[in-house]
């Protein structure tokens, strides 16, 4: 293997191998943290240092006012994720981490879609929204805002349905997730 210290050039495969850590399935990490300054920066920094791209990130209060819940999703092969959770555990303000098993987890996110509706399309868009159990939260002369709640796939499906009508903008919160059954997440 080449190394900066030796004259051998690095091969393309080596460079790719170094960058290929982001393959594999999506992981949802649920992290319980102390509500202290800088916690989010420490967590985000740790991901950045290991070359991981956080896909979604949500932070909010938990049932205990001193603790916050962070839910983040990240794309990665299992081994590096394991390394990241172990490193996360080392952060003093992190109390608990779970790499949630998709089969044992309910995950939801909320999305807002602003769709352009000129004339007769309005009815059609509203119909689609209804099918997706969406809510119309704002109606203008030439646009509507629709609120959709659900898993990431449902939101993606809705997006593909309304895009042809003219999607002005879309906002998503990122997933929050809770484990099924009696046990705490």
């Amino acid at each position: 293997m080449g190394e900066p210290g030796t004259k051998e050039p690095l091969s393309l495969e080596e460079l790719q191998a170094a960058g290929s850590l982001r393959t594999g399935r999506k992981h949802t990490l649920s992290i319980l943290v102390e509500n202290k300054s800088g916690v989010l920066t420490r967590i985000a920094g740790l991901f950045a240092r290991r070359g991981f791209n956080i896909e979604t990130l949500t932070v909010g209060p938990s049932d205990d006012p001193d603790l916050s819940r962070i839910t983040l999703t990240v794309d990665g092969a299992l081994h590096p994720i394991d390394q990241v959770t172990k490193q996360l555990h080392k952060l003093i303000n992190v109390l608990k981490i779970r790499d949630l098993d998709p089969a044992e987890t309910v995950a939801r996110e909320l999305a807002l879609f602003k769709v352009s509706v000129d004339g007769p399309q309005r009815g059609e868009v509203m119909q689609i929204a209804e099918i997706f159990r969406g809510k119309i939260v704002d109606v203008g002369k030439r646009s509507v805002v629709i609120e959709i709640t659900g898993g990431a796939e449902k939101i993606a499906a809705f997006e593909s349905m309304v895009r042809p009508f003219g999607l002005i903008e879309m906002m998503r919160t990122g997933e929050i997730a809770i484990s099924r059954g009696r046990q705490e997440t």
Partner: protein
Amino acid sequence: MRAVDAIMECLKAEGVEVVFGLPGGANLPTYDAFVDADIRHILVRHEAGGGHAAEGYAKATGRVGVAFATSGPGATNLVTPICDAMMDSVPVVFITGQVRTELLGTDGFQEADTIGITMPIVKHSFMIQDPQEIPRAIHEAFHIARTGRPGPTLVDIPQDLSRAEIEYQPVSDVHLPGYQPTVEGNQKQIRQAARALAASQRPILYVGGGVVNSNASAELRELAACDRFPVTATVMALGAFPAPHPQWLGMLGMHGTRAANYAMDEADLICAIGARFDDRVTGKLSEFAPHAKIIHIDIDPAEISKNVPAHIPIVGDAKSVLGKLAVEYRALAADPARLEPWWQRIASWQERYPLRYEESADSEIKPQYMVRALHEATGGQAIITSDVGQHQMWVAQYYDFPEPRRWINSGGLGTMGFGLPAAMGAAVGCPDRLVCCVAGDGSVQMNAQELATCSAEGIPIKVFIMNNGYLGMVRQWQELFWEKRYSAVEMGPYPDFVKLAEAYGATGMRCEDKRTLVDDFKRAIETEGPVVVDVRVSREENTFPMIPAGKAAREMVG
């Protein structure tokens, strides 16, 4: 009570006897408190010197080192020692001043985002937002630095908050729900490890700095004595197992012995204790120890299987785990005769490939000989610090360390300029011991200013500069791997180290003749106060043997 006086109370409660630091605007209030506090403060000439001195103190004594700096440039000058302490797991508490809270985020004079800059290189840090928090933060900083896998912590205190009056109440407990290091190893895993050791035909104990940090040297010797386990150690752990010793194979890794590296390569079981499979140890990872099962004992779960998958992971403190492992192992009554063929193989390597160099025929001082001469002049009993480069590796190879905490170097970060201030810190922590620094002529210039501190404070370190007139290690790589196209490695004749020493109030000496070297060194050691010895050694000697970067252990050269 003034918050700054409370800081002093906290330091005393933590048993702090010395602080290395340098004041400025943002920590003026704290420095006022030093006037009446009964704590020794050593005024360094550069904050990096203070940080490394605190590291040297911590490494030599096992106690927590403390370094102070002001905001902005004072804090940024600490970045290298903080990172160094992180890489080598050194317990140091850094306390920095910060601009007044109303100036935070305004690019105020001497404002730097110290917490942000140091976040990836501290074990933990505290930004003080309420003066009442100061005592607890300081105690937590000490607790976190000292326990588990040790490391640097930082407390950043805005100037206005340090000037506040607080209600000081001694803090007797720290409560950190998110921080509970596992000390006791899992008994079942330990038993399994004992069985694996008893079943192995070609075992080796691979010892890292964690054994020194957990003061587990006696337990390591005990385990090694259970059977004739061969022992090797990283550059961080020299002395954890006594050298020389019939079971001691020498250091492993890039400049380790062939016996140690070949034994790792052919082992069927590697028992790693407080070591982290650094690339300087493993060489090419995919070809590392192809036949071995791995027992990995470490207090930091994130180290286990980070680089090399462990078959038997044991999370726990080395001292506790090794003690139990020895008991479990003895109960198995393994047959020591099974290791006979393995020892024959190791002995054949030791015989064929001892550490060796070509001795000069005349007065020329070979660098390796210089280290042996120092060993002789000190009776092998000194605390030795080093800088980074060829000289560091030669000391690691040729100075046999009989005990832990005698060898103090910058292993993980490889920080040039570490040696002199670290020696200063070690000498302050161990006033009854002889403390020597083997410095590089390049490295020593990165913190030579601390000689003034040594003279002013009467810290009698002996600095032996291995002067080859080169950034030697870089020159070696250029010679071996870049067709000898030397680029920016020649140091030239400056400075005159004897005059430099004298300018700093130290004694300067020069050695150019190997025939008088041991006596010259003895004279330097007997000279009172700080001494600098400029030792002119062979200029283009190479450090061998060597695993070229990215190659496997089997491919050692030289």
